[in-house]
């Protein structure tokens, strides 16, 4: 379930379908939309990279403790690794979208 949820989340980032309040889109004057969209994606990237770091620390701890998932009989870190990987992938995507507006998914492109 965790893998399905995080992989789904990654696909949602790819298509720009994450739920977000769109009120800010209307607050910014049209001529600043380029700056707004770049800053928006940069901020998302910063959050995702932060979450990647803490995710890595968490998974590394599981790895060191060699915890086992009792149901799957798998090393726990194997199940958990999807958490930092998804945040990393979302962070990289957001960074690319910030720097290369043409690659932004249609749903999140706005005017740039």
């Amino acid at each position, binding site marked *: *379930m965790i893998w399905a949820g995080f992989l*789904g989340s990654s696909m949602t980032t790819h298509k720009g379908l*994450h739920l977000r309040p769109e009120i*800010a889109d209307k607050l910014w004057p049209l001529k600043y939309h380029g700056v707004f969209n770049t800053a928006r994606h940069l901020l998302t990237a910063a*959050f995702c990279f932060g979450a990647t770091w803490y995710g890595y620390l968490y998974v590394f701890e599981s790895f060191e403790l060699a915890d086992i998932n009792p149901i799957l009989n798998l090393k726990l870190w194997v199940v958990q690794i999807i958490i930092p990987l998804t945040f990393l992938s979302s962070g990289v995507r957001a960074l690319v979208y910030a720097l290369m507006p043409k690659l932004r998914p249609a749903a999140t492109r706005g005017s740039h």
Partner: protein
Amino acid sequence: MITLGLVLLLLLLVLFGQPLFVMIGAVTAYCFHFYAAEDIQVIIGDIFFAGDKEILLAIPLFVLAGNLMTQGGIAKRLIRLARAVTNPIPSGLAIAGVLSCAIFAAISGSSPVTLIAIGSILYPAFMQEGYSKDLSIGMLSAGGTLGIIIPPSIPMIVFAIMASVSVTDLFKAGIGPGILLTFLLVLYGIFKGPGWSARTPFDAKEFFVALKEGILSLLMPVVILGGIYSGIFTATESAGIAVLYALIIEFAVHRELKLRQIPGILAETAEMLGTLFLILVLAVGLNKFMTYQQIPQNMVEALSGKISDKFSFLIGVNLLLLLVGCFMDIMSAILVLAPLLTPMAVHFGINPIHFGIVMIVNLEIGYLTPPVGINLFVASGIFNEPIGKVIKSIIPLVFVLLIGLALITFIPQISLFLLN
């Protein structure tokens, strides 16, 4: 100073249009670090354990079952059957429209999908039989919202997770209000429709043909809910049964689903899960922080001085939720408000299951209220009418739903009769 920082952080996130998962995640991290002096790494642990909850599995499975069932001609089959039954009744088409919406919504679990599937077929028929544009648009748009109150319902599962109540009980509690709201919409259709002039005699042959074609689709909610209500399977197991049932029906019986469609359906399901999953698991972390800090209890104490009785609380909470429904989508509203409002409701002696239903009916009305009511935009698109015209058509139906909301709010037995 710390609180000022939190407000500024929230403002910054809103001002830069951040996705909800970033907003909830950043606020949770800030609260853990500055209020609880906890290591932020703890949140990742909360995400992992929240994502591991069995009931979460019901969400993608119900969505998958709905996606599988709605690929073929189910809408046409349900409408044919509903029309065969309601043709002899005055304004029968309006009744067929609402009933088709209610059943289709129970299967698909999606309000906009219901409106598109049923609305696009029935709207021309409404016009042909002399229904006014306003009534047709209003009835079909309002009928489309029934999906979230008729179980199985994804918002109910989300509420159950956030408020720590039983999904099975919520599903049981949804059936009474679902029937009531359907009945009220049908009643409105009978009074406002063309009445006897649009009546046609009952055709037994057409009825049996329509029943034969539609019975298996119609039975899906019956199998799921029957299994849950009789205690044969849990809500999560019923979601698995729903997928299996949908696969058998669509592959083997109706033969409308092709193997090549499956990857697309799975991807669509994963995307839907993706929009919800991160927000949900992060919100569980924020919920844990609020519980540790006794924020709901503090709010209850603060509110107790101002609101003395259950009646005033229910009125206040309904007004708040109707307002919230105008500006927030249903999932976000449940994630943020359910953990805060449910303890208050319990403090005022309201059954949390009943409160969950009240909350969901309020937010259901939000599908029809500007500026973010999704059914307004869907209706504007499929009926090719300006958004202002759609809003005008929907206003009377919103009042009908408000009457239903008042009854559901102040007569708890409508929701709780199956639980008792």
